[in-house]
């Protein structure tokens, strides 16, 4: 499997290199869908230039990256393109290895459940076979590397690629079972963009499952492990934050990075839901609504954890999607990360109900974004409502995609345990609905 992966990597690198050299690079780098105030490359360069002039980069409202990024790019700024290409490749390789291991786990679990007779007799066609699972890791790497969103994000040199890479390593570490590394990478991911905090729950559930610790609230083993993992995570987070203090000898980065993410002062249009709402809101309501919107991101963790406690990887996927939809400054790079996981659930295809409409919506909206931006900003014949309409439609498409996959997943689980041909009490055919 190494050779096809190398081929895919080569193809991806070629595409990116070609785009870097073309005139599209500048155009893509300026697009608001790809570069947000949090991760635009222009701002990184600006911050480093300010640092060279002796001014703290956090003194204005330009630079919202973490000190570790400053350190990274201080030495690598001339090789920025190479850095981003390598980052993408590393992400793809990490995802590849992670999904490879995950497939083994899935297969093992499946075998166990079959031997324990937990499955209904007529569900042979629903069971995943190693043959069809063989190509999934390659498909995941392919989906990530050759996704136009990822390519655009890389060409724009948006630091979202670095965040994706850290999350990919976190997923790899979680699947391999190393709680320490998983906590470290999760701390790094949270340190950079705060929202991966919600990925703590799926990772914890996965590690508990791997250690065969049952998830019962009264069990001492559960709480012990949870405390261990949580303390690893929090300690590494605290250590990283304290280390960042020593880069510039100031705590300026905390309001600039986390204050900025949480209070959303910059209302530049992007593909998210925050900007329009807060642009038209009265000031005395904005605090309330900022809190509501931010709680919305973190809110789904507990219910999903309760429902999907047996399936932590799916939970991780749904949580990643929720982060990229509801975060304060999303970009297409965030979307590319969770879309890379879609091949893992390709066995759910027969249960997806709206996949055609949703893929059409997503593709059309992606094309309409630059059109309506041009109409609004350059031609002047549209206004922000038009662009926000496309943003809304795009996000609705994503939300429906995730809920479709959620429904399909739960339906398959139900069929596995209750058989494919469901009948009601009087013998007629029954239909499964998600209530």
């Amino acid at each position: 499997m190494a050779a096809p992966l190398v081929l895919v990597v080569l193809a991806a690198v070629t595409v990116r290199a070609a785009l870097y050299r073309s005139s599209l690079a500048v155009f893509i780098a300026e697009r608001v869908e790809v570069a947000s105030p949090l991760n635009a490359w222009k701002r990184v360069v600006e911050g480093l230039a300010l640092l060279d002039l002796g001014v703290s980069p956090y003194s204005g409202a330009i630079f919202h990256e973490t000190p570790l990024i400053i350190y990274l790019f201080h030495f690598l700024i001339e090789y920025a393109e190479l850095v981003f290409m390598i980052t993408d490749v590393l992400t793809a390789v990490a995802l590849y290895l992670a999904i490879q291991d995950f497939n083994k786990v899935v297969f093992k679990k499946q075998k166990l459940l079959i031997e324990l007779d937990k499955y209904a007799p007529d569900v042979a066609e629903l069971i995943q076979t190693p043959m069809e699972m063989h190509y999934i890791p390659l498909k995941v790497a392919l989906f990530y590397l050759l996704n136009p969103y990822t390519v655009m994000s890389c060409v724009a040199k948006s630091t979202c690629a670095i965040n994706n890479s850290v999350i990919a390593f976190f997923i790899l570490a979680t699947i391999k079972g190393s709680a320490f590394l998983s906590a470290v990478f999760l701390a790094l991911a949270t340190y950079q963009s705060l929202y991966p905090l919600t990925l703590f729950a799926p990772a914890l559930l996965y590690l508990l499952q791997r250690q065969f610790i049952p998830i019962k609230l009264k069990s001492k083993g559960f709480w012990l492990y949870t405390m261990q993992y949580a303390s690893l995570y929090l300690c590494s987070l605290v250590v990283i934050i304290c280390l960042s203090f020593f880069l510039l000898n100031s705590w300026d980065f905390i309001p600039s990075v986390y204050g900025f993410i949480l209070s959303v002062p910059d209302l530049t249009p992007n593909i998210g839901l925050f900007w329009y709402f807060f642009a038209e809101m009265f000031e005395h309501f904005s605090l309330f609504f900022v809190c509501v919107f931010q709680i919305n991101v973190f809110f789904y963790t507990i219910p999903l954890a309760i429902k999907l406690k047996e399936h932590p990887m799916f939970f991780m996927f749904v949580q990643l999607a929720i982060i990229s939809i509801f975060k304060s400054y999303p970009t297409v790079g965030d979307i590319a990360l969770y879309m890379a996981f879609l091949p893992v659930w390709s066995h759910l295809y027969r249960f997806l109900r709206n996949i055609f409409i949703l893929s059409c919506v997503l593709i059309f909206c992606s094309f309409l974004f630059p059109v309506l931006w041009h109409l609004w900003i350059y031609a002047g014949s549209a206004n922000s409502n038009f662009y926000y309409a496309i943003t809304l439609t795009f996000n609705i498409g994503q939300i429906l995609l995730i809920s479709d996959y959620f429904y399909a997943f739960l339906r398959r689980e139900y069929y596995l345990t209750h058989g494919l041909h469901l009948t009601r009490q009087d013998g007629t055919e029954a239909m499964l609905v998600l209530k």
Partner: protein
Amino acid sequence: MAAAVPGGARGRAAAALLLLLLLGCCGAAAAGGLQDQAEQFFRSGHTNNWAVLVCTSRFWFNYRHVANTLSVYRSVKRLGIPDSHIVLMLADDMACNPRNPKPATVFSHKNMELNVYGDDVEVDYRSYEVTVENFLRVLTGRIPPSTPRSKRLLSDDRSNILIYMTGHGGNGFLKFQDSEEITNVELADAFEQMWQKRRYNELLFIIDTCQGASMYERFYSPNIMALASSQVGEDSLSHQPDLGIGVHLMDRYTFYVLEFLEEIHPASQTNMNDLFQVCPKSLCVSTPGHRTDLFQRDPQNVLITDFFGSVRKVEITTEALSLDRDVAGFESKFPEEELATEPLKYAEQLPVAQIIHQKPKQKDWHPPGGFILGLWALIIMVFFKTYGIKHMKHVF
């Protein structure tokens, strides 16, 4: 009889004395009257009059603003200011508006009694040319060289200028053409520019809009008198609609000002205090306001025709005056000095040579050593925790 003659002589002498006294008094009075007249001659320091009349609203239902402006135009022209000294800015054409049932007319009184749009109305800024920018350029004189003379305010420091503005306004602003506004601060600054450029001697500012008094609140240049049709927080109301034309023909304040002005003729001695009394609250519903604290003369002494008319001061005299020239004072105050012979060089402010040969700046900032040490220590610790110490033997 001999006693009557000396008495008669004394009587005649007394009568003569009285007559002399009377004559003296009369002479004194006459001299005093001449004195007054002479004083009055030099009372106002202006030699010419200008008028800038601005209507800022467009659309048919703002007919009354155009009628307002044209009424003031009519009065001002009638009292002597020529078209060459009037800058008339009308934001819309009511006379030839397709909705005008009486084309080529603009009436200012119901029953169509007074047509203020005659044959000789010269509109200088029409339709979309009436913008805040053009208005301010007219006032301050900062006009492109291609502007025709009729569109310029060529006033000097002996000009009295009447500025009349009407339209829709609010607290601190006046709306132009439904798309932009001029604020009271801008207007005050424009007047200050005019003062500093010596473009007026005295200025009378009249505004007929809602909350008009807010527009003159910010004036700070000397010799400005301002009148407004309503105070801040009040609306200026329109007079009566004409059912034949279908719109309100005039605003109340200007209607009563026009009535007042119809009685003025070029020789009137009516003063500004009478203008302040025009349109009390019972007639106008809003409370007109005025501001005279920046004006140096007493409004009592300011004639209406000082601003609304163009009264030439002519004094006919039969005396001959000789104008002496102080020859001594005209001696050249500048002794012939030797001019500097060496040509003045442009100072070398820009060291071009240095810039061309500048080396690229070194990066001055480096991450502190403690940070790098801490970071790599952490990375090594994570590495060894993951892979175990026993791998160290492969390193060494």
